[in-house]
C-alpha cells in the first residue's frame, strides 16, 4: 500500500513537469492572448490597419491564439506625448499598449529597456529582405527597437479639377511645378486668379528650407539642444526664399493638415506626407456648398536649382512594449504577418507609404492602383526614390515644441503681413520680419 501511495504521489509531482515538455509555444488558441495596439494609420478616416488587424484576428490570430485590439488610432504628432504619458503612469494615464507606432526618437524617450528587440524575433535572412536604410532608422544601438512597417516622404497634392481651370486661364502646367521657381510663380498667379487665396498649404515648411540649404551646398547646423543654428547665412537665405511668397499669401502654413484646406477649397494644393492621401476626400466642397471631384494629382517635390535633390524619409515603425515572453511571441507573429511582401504592398499602397521590403518595392512598379490619385502618388514616389536622396532628420530635445511655436506664430502673423504686402510694404522687410521671428524662438 505504501508503495502504491509513493508511486501515486511521484506521478502527481512529476505531472506538472512532464506536462510542460514538448511545448514549443506559449500561445494557446483556446485561450487567446490580447495585444492592445495604438497606431497612426487612418485617424478619423477609413483605417487600412484596422482592416488588416481584423483579417489577422480572423485568420492567423485565431489559429495561434492572438487577438490584436486597436485601442487608439491617432496621428504621428499626437502619439508620442500619449506614449510618454502612458509609460510615465499615473492615475489618469492611459494603459501602455502592447504594440504601437512610434518614431525612433519616441522610442529613445520611452527607453530601450521597455521595448522588444525585433532582432531576437527576425532572422538575419528575414531582415535581409528589408530596405537597409529603413532598418537602420529603427536601430537603437544594437537593438532594432522600431520595426519598419512603412515609410513616407512628402509630395505635392493638387486639386486636379480646379488646377485644370487655373491652367486653362493662366497657362500654368504641372511641369511648371517641378521647380521651386516655377512653383512660386504659379503660386503668385493663383493668388491673383483666385482673388487672394493661397496656392499651397505646407505641413512641414521648415523641411523644404533645410533641403534648399543642402541643395545649395550648405549644411543645416543644429545647436546642442537640437534647434537650428540661426546664425547660419545659408539657412537665412533659404528661409527668405520661402518667406517672400509666404508673406504675400501666395503660400500658407497649413492649419494642421494641408488636406483639409484643399478639401474646403481654401488652397489649390498642399504639400505634406504621402500618407495624407488616405485623408483626401473625393470631392472638394466650397463654402457655397458647390462641390466638384478632387481629381487628385500628386507630383514630386519641386526641385531646387542644384545637382542634388533631397527628400525626407519619415514614418513611424512598429514597437512592442516588452512585458511577457508570451506577448513577445505574439507580437513577433503579428509583425511577421504584417510585413509579408504582398500584404505589406497592399497596406502601404492603401495608406500612401513606401513599402519596407525590397520585393514589395519592386512589385509596386506593376501594381494596379485603385484610382488615378494613388497612381500619380506612387509615380511621384518612384521618381523621388530614383532621383532624390532620402534624409532622416535627427531630432532631439524640445525640437517639436519650438517648431510648433514657429508655425503657430506664422499662422497668426501671416494674414496681417499679406495685407501689409498688398499695401506696398517691402517684401524683403516682411520676409526679414519672419526671419527675425524665427530667430526669436529659442
Amino acid at each position, binding site marked *: 500500500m505504501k508503495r502504491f501511495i509513493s508511486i501515486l504521489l511521484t506521478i502527481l509531482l512529476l505531472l506538472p513537469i512532464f506536462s510542460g515538455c514538448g511545448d514549443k509555444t506559449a500561445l494557446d488558441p*483556446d485561450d487567446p492572448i490580447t495585444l492592445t495596439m495604438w497606431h497612426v494609420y487612418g485617424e*478619423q478616416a477609413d483605417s487600412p490597419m484596422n482592416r488588416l488587424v481584423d483579417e489577422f484576428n480572423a485568420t492567423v490570430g485565431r489559429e495561434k491564439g492572438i487577438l490584436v485590439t486597436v485601442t487608439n488610432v491617432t496621428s504621428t504628432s499626437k502619439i508620442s506625448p500619449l506614449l510618454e504619458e502612458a509609460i510615465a503612469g499615473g492615475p489618469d494615464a492611459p494603459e501602455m499598449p502592447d504594440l504601437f507606432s512610434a518614431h525612433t526618437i519616441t522610442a529613445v524617450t520611452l527607453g530601450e529597456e521597455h521595448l522588444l528587440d525585433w532582432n531576437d524575433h527576425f532572422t538575419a535572412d528575414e531582415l535581409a529582405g528589408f530596405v537597409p536604410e529603413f532598418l537602420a532608422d529603427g536601430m537603437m544601438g544594437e537593438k532594432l527597437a522600431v520595426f519598419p512597417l512603412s515609410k513616407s516622404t512628402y509630395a505635392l497634392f493638387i486639386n486636379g479639377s480646379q488646377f485644370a481651370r487655373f491652367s486653362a486661364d493662366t497657362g500654368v502646367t504641372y511641369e511648371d511645378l517641378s521647380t521651386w521657381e516655377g512653383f512660386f510663380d504659379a503660386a503668385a498667379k493663383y493668388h491673383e486668379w483666385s482673388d487672394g487665396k493661397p496656392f499651397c498649404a505646407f505641413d512641414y515648411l521648415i523641411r523644404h528650407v533645410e533641403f534648399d540649404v543642402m541643395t545649395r551646398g550648405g549644411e543645416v547646423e543644429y545647436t546642442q539642444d537640437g534647434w537650428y543654428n540661426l546664425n547660419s547665412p545659408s539657412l537665412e537665405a533659404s528661409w527668405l526664399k520661402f518667406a517672400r511668397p509666404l508673406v504675400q499669401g501666395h503660400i500658407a502654413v497649413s492649419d494642421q493638415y494641408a488636406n483639409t484646406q484643399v478639401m474646403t477649397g481654401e488652397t489649390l494644393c498642399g504639400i505634406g506626407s504621402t500618407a495624407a492621401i488616405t485623408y483626401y476626400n473625393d470631392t472638394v466642397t466650397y463654402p457655397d456648398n458647390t462641390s466638384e471631384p478632387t481629381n487628385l494629382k500628386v507630383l514630386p517635390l519641386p526641385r531646387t536649382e542644384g545637382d542634388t535633390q533631397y527628400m525626407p524619409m519619415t514614418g513611424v515603425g512598429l514597437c512592442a512594449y516588452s512585458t511577457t515572453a508570451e506577448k513577445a511571441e505574439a507580437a513577433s507573429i503579428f509583425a511577421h504577418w504584417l510585413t509579408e511582401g504582398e500584404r505589406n504592398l497592399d497596406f502601404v499602397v492603401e495608406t500612401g507609404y513606401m513599402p519596407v521590403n525590397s520585393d514589395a518595392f519592386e512589385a509596386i512598379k506593376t501594381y494596379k492602383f485603385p484610382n488615378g490619385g494613388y497612381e500619380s502618388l506612387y509615380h511621384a514616389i518612384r521618381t523621388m526614390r530614383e532621383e532624390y536622396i532620402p534624409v532622416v532628420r535627427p531630432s532631439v530635445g524640445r525640437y517639436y515644441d519650438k517648431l510648433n511655436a514657429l508655425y503657430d506664430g506664422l499662422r497668426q502673423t501671416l494674414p496681417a503681413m499679406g495685407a501689409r504686402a498688398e499695401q506696398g510694404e517691402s517684401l524683403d522687410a516682411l520676409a526679414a520680419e519672419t526671419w527675425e521671428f524665427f530667430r526669436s524662438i529659442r
Partner: protein
Amino acid sequence: MRTFTAFRYSEWSMKKKLFGYMLLLAVLLLLALMTGLFLFGRFDSAEKNAYESLDVQMECFEKDVFTHFQRLAAAGLELSENTTGLLEAHLADHDLSFSDLNDSAEEIAALQETLLEPLRQKLLQENCSGAFILLDVTVNSSVPDAAHSRTGLYLQQNGYKTSDKSILLYRGLSDLGKHHGMMPHRKWRLEFRTDIFPDYSKLLSCAVSAPEEAYLLTERFTLPGTSEDAVLMAAPIVGTDGTVYGICGFEVSASYFRAYHAQPTKLAHLTCLLTAGSPHSLNASAGLSCGVSGGYYLEPKGIFSAEEADSGLLTLSNGDTSYIGITRTLSLSPNNEPHIIASMIPKADYDRAVTKIAIQNTVLWALILFFAISCCMYFSRRYLTPILKGLEQIKSDRRSEAQSSIPEINDLFVFLAEQDRQHEDSLYALTMQNQSVQSENARLQLEYERAQMTYEKAQAEYAKAQRDLSDAKKELDRLAYSRKTEIDPDDYQYFLSGMQELTPTERDIFTWYLEGKTANEILALAGIKQGTLKFHNHNILQKLGVSSRKHMLRYAALMKQQKDTPSS
C-alpha cells in the same frame, strides 16, 4: 471460484470486516454529503457558475447601458429645447422666418456661430463621441441634390480615450470651426446628407409625440468617409408653433461604446452586446458591443441564433463563432422596438471551464475517497492491533503476565489466568497419577525383564543341549565314515613327508589338483605340455607314495581337514 470465495463474508478476517464496515460508513457519508451539496445548490457546476457570472455582468451592463442612453436621451431633449430657444431668438432678432435661412450663407453662418459654443458645451458634458444639430435648411438650394443637403453642426471628440480632448468639426462651416479652435475633421463636409442620415424620416415623425417621448436611438450606421460606425440618440427640434426645425442629438460611436462600456470582470473573454432583433436571433452587426477593461475585445459580427443550453444559458452562434450567454430585452426609447442585450463568453472558454470543473470535482472526490480509504485502513489497523496483540498473547505461554491497553482484554486475561490455574491444578493431579502409573509400570517392567532373562537362560541351556546332541551325532558319523574309508596312518605319514619333497612346480600342480582344476586347466596355468604334466604327475605320485590321483586327493582332503580343524 477463488474470487467468489474471496467475497464470502463468513471467511473474512476481523480486520477485513472492520475495514469493510468503515469503508461503507465513509461511502455513505460521502453520498450524504454529495446529496446535501446537490440539494442545497452548493455543488460546483460550470453551468451554474457561468450563469451566475454572466448574470452579474448582465446586471452591470444593463444598468450601464440603460443609464447611459437615458441620460443621453434627456440631454438630447434638453439640447433640442435649447436649440429651439436659440434659433427662435435668432430668427426674432433678425426678423426672419425659418425658411428664410435657405440660401442665406450669411444667416446660416451667424446661426451656426450662435449654436456652436452651446453644442460644444453639451458635447463636453455628456458621455458621447459627438453631438450634432441638423437644421432643415440648406446654404445653396441650387446645387445638385440640394433636397438632401441640410446645414448644421456636427462636432466630434477626437481624443475621448486619451488626455487629448480636442474637438473636430465633422459638419459645418470650416472657417467657423477654425475660428473656435475646432479643426475640420479629415472627412469634413459642409452639410449633412439626409438621404444617408440614419432614421431621418422616423426622427422627424417623432415630433408629433409627447415632448418627453420625442427621441429615439438610431440604427447603427457608418460615419461617412470613415470606417467608424455609430448610433445617434436623437430628438427632433420642434418650434413653439410645432414647426420641425431639424434634429439634434448625440453620437455614440462603436469605439466610444467599446471604451466606455468595457466591463471590469474576471471573465477574461467577456463580450457584451446591445443590438436589435429578437432574443432568438441577434444581429450583432447592427449593434454595439464591448469587451473587457484592460484589453480583450473581439467584435461579434453577423446574425447569432440563440438556442437553449443548460441552466438557463443560451448557445449563440453565427455559424463561425459560438458563444454561451444570456440575453434580455431592454427598452431605450418609446419610439424604438425593445433592444436586445447579451452578456456572453466564447463557447470554447465555457467548454474549457466545464472540463476543468469536471476534472476538479473528480480529483476532489478521488482525494476524499482516497483519504477515506486511508483513514479506514489506518483506524481499523489502529483499533485492531491491540486486540490482535492480545489474541497473540492469549496464544502465548506467558499470558498470565500479559497486559493490554484494552480493559476488556485485561478482563479476559484475568479470566484466562483463573482458567489456567484450574487447569494447572488438574494437570498436577494428573501428573501425580501419571507418576504412580509409571512407577508401577517400571516395577512390572523389571519383573518382565527378569522373566525374560530366565527365559533366555533356559533357551541357552536348551541350545547347549542341542549342540551337545549334534556333536555327539557328528562324532558318531565320523566314526562311521572312518570305518568306511579307512586310511593307513603310515601311508598317510609318508604322504605328509613326501609333501616336503615336492618341487615348487610339483607343489603348484598338486595345489591346482587340490583346488579341483582339470588337467587342461593346469596345462594352461603352468604353460607346459601334456607330456611335461604327466612327468610331474608321476613324480608327485611317487614322492607322496600314492597310487593314483584319487588316492592323492583323499590324503590331501584329510590333510586339509586336519589343518582346518583346530587341534583339540
